[in-house]
C-alpha cells in the first residue's frame, strides 16, 4: 500500500468511527534498576552498568526497587486509578537476544494500578476524558545494534551488538481503555493525551519523560467501525511512535489506510506496524498469524506486593497539583486565553514562566521574554528552553531593569545576549558592556544638539511643522549613543529645541 492509495481523511470519517487504544511506556528516573543495584545513567559505556542480575546470569535473583513501586503507585493515583491491595509480578516469556533472561519480569492480570482516567484539554479548550485501563510495572530490555544491514535493521545485517545497560531499567506501562467518541478529533486527542500524560509524569518528578530520549514511548492502536456499529473493527498496532507530532500523524494515517482497505472490501490484518517519520506513513511489521503466546505465570522469585492502605493514602496526600488544574489556575492568574496557555505549554515554557514570576517579574513580561526572544534563541540553537544557559531569576532581573527604565527592549536583548554568552548575570553584562539607557539630560542634550547641527535640512523641516521628520534626528541621536539613549526623551528634547509641538 502506498500513500496515494489512502482515502481522504474527511471521506474516512464520513464512513467510519475510529476507536483508539494508546499504550505508553515511561522509563522511570530511578537511580538504580528495577531489580538490581546497577546505575541507570544514560550514555554510559556499553555493558558497563550491568551485574549478574540484569545480565540474567545463572543463579541471580531479582529484588524489587522500592522507589520504582512508589513511583508506580503515584502514577496510578495521579491517573485516578485504584491501587491493588495485593498484586504480583509475572513472567512474560519470549526469546530475544537483548532480553537477558528470555523472559520479561512484568505484571499480567494483577496490575498495581487499574481503572482510572486522565482529562485532556484540546486546543479549543474542550476537555476530553480518556479512560485508563491499567498501569503496571515492568523492566526494559537491552539494546540491539545491527551492523552491516541497511538502515540499522536486522534484515541483511552481518552481526549485532548487544548493550545491556538498559536491561532492567524500570518501566511503567500505561494502557488506555478503548477511546471511543473521538470522531474527527481522534488524532488531536491522541496527541493531547500523550502530551498531558507527559506533563503528569513530569509533575510527579518520576521521569523526565523525554520522548526523543526514549523515556516515553508510545504504541498507537487504531481500528475503524462503520457508524452505528457497536463491535470494534480489527486493530493495527503501530509501535514506537516517539514524538507528539508522530502520534497525531500515525493515528491520522491509520484511519485513512484502514478506510481505504475497508472501502475496497478488504480486511484489516491484526499486525504490528512501523511508523516512518520522514513521510508520516506506516508499514507492516510482523503479522500476528497466531496470537503470540507469552506463557505468563506469576514470578516465583519475587514475593507479592501488598501496598499498605495508609501508605497509599500518604502518597495520595503528597501528590502535587496536577497539570490540568494547575494550568487552569495559572491561566486565571496570568489573565490569558486557553490558546495562549497552550502555546506556552507547547513551548515548554509554563514552569519557566512560573519560576520567573516567582523571582519577581510580572506574568506578562515573563511570558513575553520566554515565548518571544528566548523561544527564538532556543529554536535557533535547536534546543529546549530549559537548556538555555539563563535562569528564570536572570530573566526576572532583566524584566525588572526594563520596568525601572534602566534598559529599553533593545538593550535588554543585548543583556540577554551577554548572559547566554556566559558573560555573567544581567547586572554583570550591563556593567561590562556599559548598557544603560542614557537619560542623563546633559549627555542627551549634547547629543541632540549635535544631531540638529549635523542635519540642518531635517531640522528646518521640523521647525516648519513636519513633526514626523524628527524621527531621523532621533535615529541620529540613537546612533551617536550606540542605542543607549532613551528614545522618547530624545524626541521630546528635539521637538522642544526646534519649537515644534509633539
Amino acid at each position, binding site marked *: 500500500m502506498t500513500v496515494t492509495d489512502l482515502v481522504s481523511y474527511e471521506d474516512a470519517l464520513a464512513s467510519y468511527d475510529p476507536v483508539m487504544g494508546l499504550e505508553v511506556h515511561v522509563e522511570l528516573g530511578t537511580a538504580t534498576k528495577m531489580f538490581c543495584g546497577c546505575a541507570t545513567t544514560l550514555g554510559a559505556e556499553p555493558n558497563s552498568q550491568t551485574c549478574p542480575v540484569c545480565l540474567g*546470569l545463572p543463579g541471580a535473583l*531479582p*529484588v524489587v526497587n522500592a522507589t520504582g513501586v512508589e513511583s508506580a503507585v503515584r502514577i496510578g493515583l495521579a491517573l485516578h486509578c485504584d491501587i491493588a491491595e495485593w498484586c504480583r509480578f509475572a513472567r512474560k516469556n519470549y526469546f530475544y537476544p537483548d532480553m537477558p533472561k*528470555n*523472559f520479561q519480569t512484568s505484571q499480567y492480570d494483577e496490575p498495581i494500578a487499574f481503572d482510572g482516567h486522565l482529562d485532556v484539554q484540546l486546543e479549543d479548550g474542550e476537555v476530553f476524558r480518556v479512560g485508563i485501563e491499567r498501569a503496571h510495572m515492568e523492566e526494559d530490555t537491552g539494546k540491539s545494534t545491527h551492523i552491516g544491514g541497511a538502515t540499522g535493521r536486522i534484515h541483511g545485517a552481518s552481526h549485532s551488538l548487544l548493550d545491556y545497560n538498559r536491561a532492567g531499567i524500570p518501566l511503567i506501562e500505561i494502557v488506555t481503555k478503548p477511546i471511543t467518541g473521538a470522531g474527527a478529533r481522534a488524532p488531536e486527542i491522541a496527541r493531547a493525551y500523550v502530551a498531558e500524560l507527559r506533563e503528569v509524569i513530569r509533575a510527579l518528578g518520576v521521569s523526565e519523560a523525554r520522548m526523543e530520549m526514549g523515556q516515553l514511548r508510545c504504541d498507537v492502536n487504531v481500528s475503524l467501525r462503520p457508524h452505528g456499529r457497536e463491535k470494534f473493527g480489527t486493530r493495527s498496532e503501530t509501535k514506537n511512535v516517539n514524538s507528539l507530532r508522530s502520534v497525531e500523524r500515525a493515528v491520522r494515517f491509520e484511519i485513512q489506510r484502514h478506510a481505504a482497505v475497508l472501502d475496497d472490501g478488504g480486511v484489516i490484518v491484526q499486525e504490528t506496524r512501523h511508523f516512518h517519520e520522514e513521510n508520516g506513513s506506516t508499514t507492516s511489521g510482523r503479522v500476528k498469524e497466531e496470537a503470540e503466546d507469552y506463557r505468563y505465570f506469576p514470578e516465583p522469585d519475587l514475593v507479592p506486593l501488598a501496598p499498605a492502605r495508609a501508605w497509599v493514602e500518604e502518597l495520595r496526600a503528597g501528590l502535587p497539583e496536577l497539570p490540568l488544574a494547575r494550568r487552569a489556575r495559572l491561566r486565571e492568574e496570568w489573565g490569558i486565553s486557553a490558546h495562549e496557555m497552550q502555546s506556552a505549554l507547547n513551548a515548554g515554557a509554563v514552569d519557566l514562566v512560573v519560576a520567573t514570576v516567582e523571582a519577581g517579574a510580572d506574568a506578562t513580561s515573563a511570558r513575553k521574554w520566554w515565548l518571544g526572544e528566548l523561544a527564538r534563541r532556543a529554536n535557533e540553537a535547536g534546543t529546549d528552553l530549559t537548556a538555555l544557559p539563563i535562569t528564570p531569576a536572570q530573566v526576572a532581573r532583566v524584566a525588572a531593569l526594563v520596568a525601572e527604565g534602566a534598559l529599553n527592549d533593545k538593550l535588554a536583548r543585548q543583556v540577554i545576549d551577554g548572559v547566554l554568552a556566559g558573560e555573567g548575570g544581567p547586572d554583570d553584562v550591563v556593567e561590562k558592556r556599559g548598557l544603560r539607557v542614557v537619560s542623563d539630560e546633559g549627555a542627551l542634550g549634547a547629543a541632540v544638539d549635535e544631531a540638529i547641527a549635523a542635519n540642518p535640512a531635517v531640522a528646518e523641516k521640523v521647525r516648519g511643522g513636519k513633526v514626523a521628520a524628527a524621527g531621523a534626528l532621533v535615529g541620529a541621536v540613537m546612533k551617536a549613543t550606540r542605542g543607549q539613549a532613551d528614545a522618547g526623551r530624545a524626541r521630546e528634547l528635539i521637538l522642544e529645541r526646534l519649537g515644534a509641538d509633539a
Partner: protein
Amino acid sequence: MSELTRLTAAELAARVADGSVSAVETAQAHLDRIDAVDEKVHAFLHVDREGALAQARAVDERRAAGEKLGPLAGVPLALKDIFTTEGVPTTVGSKILEGWLPPYDATVTRRLKDAGIVILGKTNMDEFAMGSSTENSAYGPTGNPWDLTRIPGGSGGGSAASLASYQAPLAIGTDTGGSIRQPAAVTGTVGVKPTYGGVSRYGMVAFSSSLDQGGPCARTVLDAALLHEVIAGHDPLDSTSVDAPVPAVVEAARSGSVAGLRVGVVREFRGDGFQAGVLQRFDESVELLRGLGAEIVELSCPSFDKALAAYYLIAPSECSSNLARFDAMRYGLRVGDDGSRSAEEVTSLTRQAGFGPEVKRRIMLGTYALSSGYYDAYYGSAQKVRTLVARDFEAAFGQVDVIVSPTTPTTAFPIGERVDDPMAMYLADLCTIPVNLAGNSAMSLPCGLAPEDGLPVGLQIIAPAMADDRLYRVGAAVEAAYQARWGHPILEEAPAL
C-alpha cells in the same frame, strides 16, 4: 585411608581449633582420598585442589594469628555444582554451561568461605537437578559407595556419595522434590531440606524457583546442624528468603529427645511400590520412637496422592522459563555460530546440543502446561493441589509435632534400570515431594539396611516451616538410639572401596 577422613565435621573442627591438626593437613587428607577413590565413585565434577589448600592455609593463618574461628573452620566440604563459585567451573551437570566460570559467588558459597569451610570441589548431579539417580548428568553417572553398580540417588548423588565414601565430611545439596533427602536415604547419610526460604537461593542455579531449597548434607545429625547454621538466614539478595531468626538447630541436635512428642504417620505414604524391607525398617523406626516416649498418631492427608502430578506440572513450568536464559548469547556453550546463521538458529542449535533428554522433556512439558488455553487446566490446577497439600500439612501439624515416613519407596536401584521409564523414576520422590510443595522442612537419616539387599533405608522426618529445629531434636534421638543398637555408625557396614 587417613584417619582424618573418618572423623565427623565436629571432631575435625575441634582438632583444627585446638591445633592438633592443621586445616591444610585436613584438606590434603581429603584430597588424597578423592585421588584414591573418586575414579570409581565419580562424586566430583571438578576438584579445586589449589583453591582448597589456599582456603585451608588461610584458616591456619587466622588461627596462628589468634583469631577466633567459626565452629566449622578448616572442615572440608563438597559443594553441589549448582552453586556459583567465582572463577571455579559451575556446570549444573549440563553441557550447556561447560567451561563457564561464574563471575560471582552464590550466597551459600560466600557464607561457607566466610566460615572458614574448605571447599574441595563441585559435585556431580542430574542435569539442572532434574532426576533421582544422577544418571542425567551430562558428565556420566556417580556410583553408590555401597554398590558402585547402583545409583546414589539424585539429583544430589555426587554430594551424598562424597560423604558415604569419606571424600568429604560435609556437603551441600539442593532439594526441589527430594534431591537432598533421597540421595541421603540411599547412601546411608543425613540430608536436610530446610524450610523454603531458610537458605538463600542467590547464586543457586534455578530449576524450579518456588520449590528449590539448598541444605546441608553430612554423616551425622550434629554435623548437618552445624552446617545448617552456617548457611541459613536472611539474605537481602533473595526476596523469598525468610527474614526471621534461624531455628536453633545446633542446640536441638545436641539435646535430642522425643519424649512426649506427638509423631504422625501418614497413611498415604505407604502402599504399592514400597519395597518390603523399606516398610519393615520404617515400622521398626516407628516402634523405636514409641519406645523413646513419643506418642504415635495415625493421619490421613488425602491430597498427597495428587502431589506428584502437581509437582510434574509446576516444576517443569518454572524450569521452562528459568532455563530460557541459556541461549548462547552471553555465556556457556555456543553451537553453529559460523557467521551464516541467525541468533535464533544459534540459540536453537545450542539448546539442542547442550540440554540432555530429561531437561528437554521437562522444558517441553512446562511450555505446554503454561500455554494459553491449557494454563488453567494444568498449571492452575496444579497450584490448587499445592494449596490442598499445604492445608493437609497444616491440619496434620494441628495434631502432631512431626511426621515420619520412609524417605523413598525403595533402596538404591541399579544404574540403568529406570532410565527409560520416567514414571518409575519419578516415583522415587513420592514421599519427599509434598514437603516441597508446602514449603516445610524435612530430614532423611539412616534407619538400617533392607534385609533383602543389605542397602540403606532412610527415615524421613517432616516439621512445619521454620520449625527445622524439631528435625534435629528427633533426628538426634533416633540416631543415638540406632547407634546404640548397632554399636557403630551404619556407614561402617559399607564395603571398602
